[in-house]
Structures are given as structure tokens and as C-alpha cells.
């Protein structure tokens, strides 16, 4: 991979929560336009891993470079966060703002767009995620699936270079999962660089370039989806796949 093509580069990253070694020697490179799916049992450190990428979690040892910015440079963090979208499991929409206001808030105040520009961009994105008729609604007036689509549009409105997703569909009722996954598949096909923590293996099969399996804070296995699902090398991966694919 050439120097320009690297978007996220972990080298020997270690993190502790007190005595708990939550990230152990993580080395991982995500190229521009690549889609990486991260899976693993609860508590294995998946959230912590992607939260490091936009500096939501600090780490003690190692190096992490995102879009050319070294994360140890805390002063560059804010500028970096403008380029990295983050979608949370629990949506975290601003309850006191309408869907459109949620989407335009950061572009106006952080990017410095005019209200008109931001709204034009925001409207287009809400249309794109299928919520053209919901712009004036407050989050509590929307279903979970709709809220998560607004949250994705909110991140996209900053025109980020990387999108991070932390279990974006696991708080949703089953019938709403696909409407969110469809948006994410579209995004992946447009060439967005994505790191996605999810157990939706259908999504991984469709668009992932690589699937990563984590356990106890370490990356156990990394493989393209075909290999990952049909011929996993490690027993722990097989074990895990057995558990999640059988229901």
C-alpha cells in the first residue's frame, strides 16, 4: 500500500483500563476506500478500538495515524474529528433539534458553512437516506431506524473522509436493521473508507474488504470475507462464528 493510500494506521497500540489490558499490541492498516468489519465477543475491545480512531479514547502505548495526523498530537485532534464521522449504537441525536438541525449543526458551527449551504447539503443527505419527508421532525418523533439514518446523514454532512460505526444496528428492532444497512452498503459502494463494528455478517459478505476478529483486546484473525467465513484459521474464530451464524 502506498503512503497516500493509508487512511488509518495502528502500530503497536496498547491501552489499559486500570489493570484491564483492553487493547493488546494492535497493528492494523486501513487503506483509502477500504471497508473493514470488526467483530468479536462482548467486552473484547471492539468499541475501544474504533473509539481510538477519532480520539474518543486515549491510549498509552503505540502509534496511531489517521489521515496523516498522529493521534498523539492532541492539538490536531479537533481538525481530525471534522474528517472522521462516528455513528453510535444509541444514535445520540440531539433531542432538542429537528432532523435537519441535527444534520446542519456541525457543518454550520464547525465547518463554517452558511446556513443556506448547510441546509442544501443536509436536505440532499436526508433525501438520500430516505427521510426527505422527516426533516422537521424531532428525534423522539422518529423510529429507531429513522433516527440512525439521521445520525448517518449528520456525520456525512461534514463530508468526512472516514466513517466509523459502532454496532449501528444492534439497538434496532429486526425489521429496521435493513433500512440502515442499505444506507451503509450504498456508502461503501461509493468508496467511503469505513470501519464497522457489527455482527451483521450479511453486510460483511456484501461489502467488506476484510473482516477482523477480536478477542480479549487482541486481533486474532484478519481475512477477506470469503476466507473468513468459509475457512477461518483460528479455533476461537470458528467458535465465535458458530455462535453468531446459528441464529
Amino acid at each position, binding site marked *: 500500500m502506498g503512503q497516500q493510500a493509508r487512511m488509518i494506521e495502528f502500530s503497536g497500540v496498547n491501552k489499559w483500563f486500570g489493570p484491564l489490558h483492553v487493547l493488546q499490541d494492535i497493528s492494523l492498516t486501513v487503506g483509502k476506500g477500504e471497508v473493514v468489519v470488526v467483530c468479536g465477543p462482548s467486552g473484547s475491545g471492539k468499541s475501544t478500538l474504533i473509539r481510538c480512531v*477519532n480520539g*474518543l479514547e486515549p491510549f498509552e502505548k503505540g502509534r496511531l495515524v489517521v489521515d496523516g495526523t498522529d493521534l498523539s498530537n492532541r492539538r490536531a485532534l*479537533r*481538525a481530525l*474529528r*471534522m474528517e*472522521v*464521522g*462516528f455513528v*453510535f449504537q*444509541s444514535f*445520540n*441525536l*440531539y*433531542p*432538542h433539534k429537528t432532523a435537519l438541525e441535527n444534520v446542519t*449543526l*456541525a457543518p454550520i*458551527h*464547525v465547518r463554517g458553512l452558511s446556513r443556506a449551504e448547510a441546509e442544501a447539503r443536509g436536505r440532499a443527505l436526508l433525501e438520500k437516506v430516505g427521510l426527505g419527508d422527516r426533516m422537521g421532525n424531532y428525534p*423522539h418523533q422518529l423510529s429507531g431506524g429513522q433516527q440512525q439514518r439521521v445520525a448517518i446523514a*449528520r*456525520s456525512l454532512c*461534514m463530508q468526512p473522509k472516514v466513517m466509523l460505526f459502532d454496532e449501528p444496528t444492534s439497538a434496532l428492532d429486526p425489521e429496521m436493521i435493513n433500512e440502515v444497512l442499505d444506507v451503509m452498503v450504498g456508502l461503501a459502494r461509493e468508496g467511503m473508507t469505513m470501519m464497522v463494528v457489527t455482527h451483521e455478517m450479511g453486510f460483511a459478505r456484501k461489502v467488506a474488504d476484510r473482516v477482523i476478529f477480536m478477542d480479549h483486546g487482541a486481533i486474532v484473525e484478519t481475512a477477506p470475507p470469503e476466507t473468513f467465513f468459509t475457512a477461518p484459521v483460528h479455533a476461537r474464530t470458528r467458535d465465535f462464528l458458530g455462535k453468531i451464524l446459528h441464529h
Partner: protein
Amino acid sequence: MFWFYAERILGYWPVLLKGLGMTLGLSLLSLLIGAAIGFAFGIIRAGGNRWLSRALGIYIDLFRGTPFLVQVFIVFFILPAAGIELSAFAAGVVALSNLAACFIGEIVAAGLKAVPQGQREAALASGMTPAQQMRLVLMPQALRIVTPSLVGQFVLLIKDSSVVSAIGLLDLTRAGWMIVQSVPQGLMVFGTVGLGYFLICYPLIHLSRRLERRGQDALL
């Protein structure tokens, strides 16, 4: 008999009006100053700097845990010994603003702490500065939660202001003391004074209740 005294009390209307004006002015001015400082207190108390927050917590508890009358005396009688000479009005405003700031600070801090952590994270992840996170995301939500309590606090402030009559300010309570010298009908005189306070406070109590109901609807 009743009407006789009632007329005499109302004959003192200029004093009563002046007292009412003083009570209102003192309360309003102290509310404005106290709110400005109180919001800053609240942000510090709910903020990340543990030592600053703790130190401020002790300061606030000190004033929440001592009688207001004592605080007024300290400002008015003891500060001059340290070379800070204040008029009775200034001393009243200082003591009352400080008390208001302490209570408002704790209310605002509670509101900020009640905003889910995910809200700050979402704002942070979008590249907002700490000030923007506070102004655009956290404070508006905290305000929604605490507005009824803040209005309720204003009611307490108006009532607490009666204590400053002890250092000679002609507020509504002191007007009562003056009138009762020549109209020896304590019940009627202070009934009138009480009515004055009630007339100011009742709309606020009402407002607080309405906001509380609306808040519950909005937080669905």
C-alpha cells in the same frame, strides 16, 4: 375597626411601594448577577477539573449550610474590618447574589450531569470545541431539565431578600416594621406585607408549575 386600620395601613402606601420596589430591585439585580455567576459555577461543578470542582463544592456548601442572616451580617459588618466598605444596598446585593449563585450553580450542575454522556460524545466527535459543545448541545438540554427549579429558586430568592431589612434596607419587610410602629396591628400590617410578597411570587410559582408540565411533555 378593621376598615379603620386598613385605611391607616394603606395610608402608608408610599412606604409600602418603596419597600416593594426595593425588594423587587434587590431580587432582580441579585438574580441577574447570581445567574451569571451561577451558570459559571454549574459548568465548573459539572466539568472535568476535579480539584476546581471540589474546591467550588466546598465554597457552595459553606453558603448553603449557613443561615443567610449570618452571611448578610458578615458582608455588612465584618468585611469593613478587612477594609471593604459597602453600602447596605451593595452588601445586600453581594450577599444575595452570592447565595443565588450557589444555589443556581448546583441546579445547573445537576442539569448538566443529567444530560446523557452520549450527547457530549456526539458533539465532540463532530469537532466542536468545548465551548460549542456546552452552548449548542449540553446547556440547552440542561436548561430544559432545570428551568422549573430555576424559577422556583427565584421565588426563594425574593423571600430571602427580606433578611436584608436587618441591615437597614427599606425593603417590603422593613416597611412593615416602620408601619407597625404607628399602627399597632401586627397581624394586619404583616398580612399586607405578606400579600405583597405573595403577589410577586405567585405568578412565578404558577410559571414554574406550567414549565414543569411542559417539560414532562417535551422529554417524551
